[in-house]
Structure formats: C-alpha cells, structure tokens
C-alpha cells in the first residue's frame, strides 16, 4: 500500500543556529533529490529547502520510513548538518497529516510571516527540480497540484495576503488611503536610513512620478539617489521641495525637529493645501507632532506604523482560521482521490480473478455451449459477463469509497479467495501508467476501461 510520509525541520522546531545553515546549497539539491529517490522503497519524493525550512516528502509502498531514515538522509546529504543532532528538532507526519502540512506550507500558513507570497514559488521550484530528477509520480503530481490550488484559493478567498505586515510596506499602503493615483505623486526622502530605502523601493514599485533624496552629506546622498533612480537635492532646498512633494519620509539622525509647524504652514499654503502624507521613522523624531493638527496633513511616526502592522498581523491570524478550512477541504479532496487510486489495483485484481473464474466455467460447459446456435451462445456469454459485472459493481463502488483500503484488501482477499501474488504484483510501481505519471488519474476514465493486470495501458 502507498504510504505518504513527511519529515522536516523549520523555524518553529529548530533554533537559529541550525536554521541558519539548514538550506541546501543550490548545487547539491539535485544530487540530494537523486540520492533520496534511489533509496529503497521510495517511489516518489519531494525535497523542499528554504532559509527557514527543510522538508522531505516521500511516497513509499507498504511502510512509512522511520524518522531516523530522514535524519540519516539529512546528515549524509547536507554538508553543514553532518555533526548536528537533528532528531530533537525533527517533525514527522504521515498520510493525511503530511499532506495537510504541505498544503499549509504552500499556502503560507506555516510561514514565519503568515501570508508571505514567496513560499508558494519556492514549493513550485522544488517540485520542478524533483520533476527533472524523475522523482515525481502520480501521487506527488496530485499533491503538488492540489497544494498550489489550495494556496491560490487561500489567497483569493481570504484577506490573508492583502494586509501588509512590514513597516515600509504599511507606509505605502497608508499612502494609498490618501492618494488615488501614485503615478502623479512626488516623494521626498529626508535622510537615507534603511527604512527610508525600503520605503523608496516600495514607492518605486507603486510607480510614483518622482523620488527626491535629501541628505546633509552629498557624498553619501548622491550615490544612494542614483541607486534608487532618485534626484538628489541639498537640505537648503527643503522649503521648495516640500511645497511640491506629496509624501515625505523622514529618517535622519538629527537631534531636533527638521519640520516644524511654521515650516509646514508655509509649505501647505504654497502647495494649495493639497494633502501631504508625512512619515517620521527617525528616533529621535524629525517632525514636530503638532503638525498633525494642520488640515490635510497626515503624520505617522514609527510607533503608528508598528500599530498598523500589529493590527494587520492580528487580522491575518484571524484569516488563518478560514484559510485552514480551505486547506482541510483540499486535503479531503486529495484523500478521496487517494482512496479511489488505492482501490484500483485491488479492483483490477478482482476483475482479473473473477474473469478467470468465468472463463473457466465457460470452458467447463464448452461442450454444451458448442451445441447451441451461434447467436444463443453469444447471448449466454454476454449473460455471464453482465451477471458478473452486476454482482461486482457494488463491491467496486464500496472499494472506491473505502476509507481503510488495507482492511478492504484483507476482506476481498478472504471473501473472493484472491491469490496473494496477484495483489503484490498490482501494488508495484511498474503498474503505474505513463498517463498517471503525468498526473492524470486513471479513475477519470470509466471503470470498464481499466486494464486487467498484465494488459498494457496507453
């Protein structure tokens, strides 16, 4: 029987000393996948390696690999983990728990920052590497497709990815609440701090019309301005540029307020009282908080932006309940497919066995049948076939819907007296058709189209 097993180490189970060297080097990932795929009993495998997690998913026949199998594998194939005791940090999941975990990872519900979009792409990349190394078969294909589909549903049916959880991005989102169109807006960066640079990057992505960078030291400011395709301006031009800018990001090391109420009153008058969004991410602050009392000025400091981020994080956490429900639905769909898929070899074996019995009985009565006219003989043969199909149909249906296929195998073997060698032959990977290897289920076809054991599928 097919067994799904997942084991891994991630940011929740391992300390930073392990996490910082956990990702496989790119050049050794393919060889690690090859090595895993050649392990005994591993039919299909997926190796997901990011800076926050390494996860291994295996499809095996009959038994689940033990946790030690995974730790041994990681120690042997990961150059930086050879001497690290991984067992205490390893999580180990089987069958539907393993699938649910992978779906949650792909939908970014297990990420350090819930809802971050990169992980789905990383799962896709890992799958692509495994596909190139021929370690992917019908089961992994199905798991991967459903994982990506659940991630898409989570993103479209919940608000999990709509709420920014970084300070710089939150500042940009707030700007969207003030301005309708960013393409005709100018941004002034006062100081070139890290946060200001991040904000500048986001602003560029949002397509602002112009970025102006202002620092005390032109030697530092000019190269930075060039890096962000911004215009450099000296501090002496502050008044002029303030009257043109729609958004100001302050992050200088100044000890006093750079923007005071009189400066802003004068600037607002010159700019015709158009709305102005001010972000003060400097500590100590660079903008006098009294400015927020002026009409059409909106001032946010670092604490305000943090509160936006915290509020969004809470919202995202609330959304994870709905997202996990979507994942559960997708897992249930996969389990249904898996139950049907697992029943195929047994159904084939049963058909083969009963067909042999039917043919043997026809053979036994061949002398009597030979005495019949051609048409009557054909009718008798059809009758036996139809009778068999009608009698076995409920059994096939029960097998398809069976939640415990192991038990079903045992019962069918006993009830119909199936020879054990037929069963073992059917569970082997050779019986997987090329169509199935591409991820297409044979169960999408009518039951009557299923091949008998030994027959070639095409």
């Amino acid at each position, binding site marked *: 029987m097919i067994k799904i097993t997942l084991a891994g180490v991630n940011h929740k189970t391992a300390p930073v000393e392990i996490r910082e060297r956990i990702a496989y080097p790119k050049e050794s990932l393919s060889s690690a996948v090859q090595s895993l795929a050649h392990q005994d009993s591993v039919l299909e495998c997926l190796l997901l390696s990011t800076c926050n997690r390494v996860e291994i998913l295996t499809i095996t026949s009959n038994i689940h690999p033990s946790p030690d199998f995974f730790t041994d594998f990681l120690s042997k194939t990961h150059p930086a983990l050879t001497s690290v005791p991984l067992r205490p940090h390893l999580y180990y999941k089987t069958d539907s728990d393993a699938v649910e975990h992978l779906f949650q990872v792909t939908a970014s519900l297990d990420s350090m920052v819930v809802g971050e979009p990169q992980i789905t792409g990383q799962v896709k990349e890992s799958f692509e590497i495994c596909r190139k190394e021929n370690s992917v078969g019908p089961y992994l294909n199905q798991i991967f497709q459903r994982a990506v589909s659940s991630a898409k549903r989570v993103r479209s049916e919940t608000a999990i990815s709509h709420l920014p959880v970084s300070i710089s991005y939150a500042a940009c989102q707030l700007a969207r609440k003030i*301005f309708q169109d960013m393409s005709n807006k100018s941004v002034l960066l006062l100081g070139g701090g890290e946060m200001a640079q991040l904000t500048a990057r986001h602003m560029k992505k949002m397509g602002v019309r112009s970025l102006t960078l202002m620092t005390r030291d032109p030697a530092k400011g000019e190269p930075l301005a060039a890096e962000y395709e911004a215009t450099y301006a000296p501090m002496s031009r502050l008044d002029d540029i303030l009257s043109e800018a729609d958004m100001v990001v302050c992050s200088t090391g100044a000890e006093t307020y750079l923007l005071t109420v009189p400066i802003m009153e004068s600037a607002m008058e010159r700019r015709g009282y158009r709305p102005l969004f001010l972000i003060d991410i400097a500590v100590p602050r660079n903008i006098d908080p009294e400015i*927020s009392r002026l009409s059409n000025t909106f001032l946010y400091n670092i604490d305000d932006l943090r509160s936006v981020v915290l509020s969004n994080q809470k919202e995202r956490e609330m959304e994870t309940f709905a997202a996990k429900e979507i994942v559960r639905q997708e897992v249930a769909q996969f389990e249904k497919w898996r139950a049907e898929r697992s029943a195929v070899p047994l159904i084939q074996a049963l058909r083969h066995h009963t067909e042999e019995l039917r043919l043997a009985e026809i053979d036994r009565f061949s002398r009597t049948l030979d005495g019949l006219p051609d048409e009557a003989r054909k009718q008798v043969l059809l009758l036996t076939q139809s009778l068999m199909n009608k009698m076995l149909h409920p059994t096939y249906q029960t097998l398809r819907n069976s939640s415990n296929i192991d038990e079903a195998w045992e019962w069918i073997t006993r009830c119909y007296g199936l020879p054990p060698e037929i069963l073992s032959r059917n569970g082997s990977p050779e019986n997987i058709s090329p169509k199935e290897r591409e991820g297409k289920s044979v169960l999408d076809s009518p039951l009557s189209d299923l091949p008998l054991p030994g027959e070639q599928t095409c």
Partner: protein
Amino acid sequence: MTISPLELLLLEMASGFYLGAFILYLSEILLSRPPRIPWAPVTAGVGGVLFQSLAIFIRFGFQGHVALLSLREVLSFFSWSLVLTFLYLEHQKKVRILGLFIFGIAFFSTLMVIGISFRAPVLSSGAPIGLLLSIHTLLIDLGLASAALAFMVSILYLVLDHFLRRKIFNRFFTRIPSLETLDQLNNNFSGIGFVFLTAGLFFAMIWSWEKFGRTLPLASQGRLAFIGAILVWLLYAMTVLVRWNRRFRGKQAAYLSISGFLVFAATMLVLAFFSKGSHFIL
C-alpha cells in the same frame, strides 16, 4: 390619485432587490474576506432598478406627464437616479462601499414610496402641468440625487480623515476609497448638482415668466421653501466657485456638501409638508 396594483408590485420587487443588495454590501464589510460572488450585489441592484424603471414608466403613463408632483414621486425618482448613478460609478471607479449607503437609502425610499399617501404634494401650480414644469421637477430631483451622493462621499471623507488622524485601522477603514478619490467625487457630484439645480430653477423662472410675467412668482405661501431654495443654490454656488480656489478642498468642501444636502432635503420636506407644494411667496 391612486397607485395601481402593478406599480405597487413592481415597487415591492424593487425594494426587495435593493434590500438584497444592501445586505450583500453589508456582509462584504462585516466579513473581512473577499466576496465569493463579487457581482451579486450589483446584479441585485440592476434587478431593483429595472423593476423601479417599469414602475416609474407606469406612473408617468398613468399621469400623462413626467412631472414629479408628490413626495412619493420625488422619492421614487430620487432613489432610481441614485441607484443608476451608483451602478455607473461602480463600473467606472469601483467605490463599493458607497453601495451600502445607496442601497440602504434606495430601500427605505422605495418603502416610503409604497407607504406614503399622495397627499404630500411638492408642487401645486394651480395650472395644467406643462413641459417646463415637468423639466423643472425632474432637474430639481436629479439635483437632489447629486447632492445626496456628494453628501455620502463627504461623510465617507470625514470618516476616513478621522480614522487616518486617530490611527483607527478597522475593516471599514480598509473598504473606504482614498481621500483623493472621495474629494474628487464630492467635487463632481457638487458640480453636477449645481448644474441641475441651476437649470431646474431656470426652467421654473421661464415658466413663471410665461404665466405671470415675472421670474419670481409671489403668493401667500411657501416663504420657507423659497428661502431654502435660494440657500441651497447659494451653498452649491459657493461650493463650486470656491473649488476654483485651490485652498478650498477636503474637509471644508465636505462640510459644505453635507450642509448643502441637508438644506436641500429640508427644503423639499418643507415644500411637501408645510407649503403644501406651493412655491409662491408673499
């Protein structure tokens, strides 16, 4: 004047659809996740407006003219034009949150239309209704609808401004369009409302000139309504004219639009309930 059973049925159907649209928009705000069927509230709104269009068509056919003489007719045409404008706006700018207010108002307006008696006239000319008076009533009602839209976007503007200043980030906050969008919409609706109002008053003055030989008709009733009309026109004239001065925008413009609509609505109510539809002053 009575309401025909068919017209009543159509108005009931329209109010049902408006209520549906209102509930759908409300659920979009209360439930944080994106709607599963985003086109459902708009479809309900389109259904409502189709039924109401038929009801208005029947009413005009029944009367034999297109003038809005009673509060019932004014409200019906008002809600109909509000919904139509919103549907256009939703198609152009995606201001979904406005749907909550529009369909709420449209629902209550149609309910009132069903419930109000015809004995609440907003226009009693004492003369046959001609084309000029019909155009006057339609334009004034369209002006009222524009003023209502300016009022709604102004309220949203003030709410968003308050949220941004107080750092309140709730679900409602995320649904409101940007301040700039709201300010622009306020500007547009106020401008359109002013044009309708001015044109409406102009047609009334032509009618008065034709009938009485003077542009400002005088009579013993309607002093309050006349003062209201002048006040509304002045408020909108001020809103539009001072917008040319770039200093006047945002909150100040929002306050002016809110007061403009309130005076406008009060004038219509005074006409209906105190002046008995008389537009003449002593």
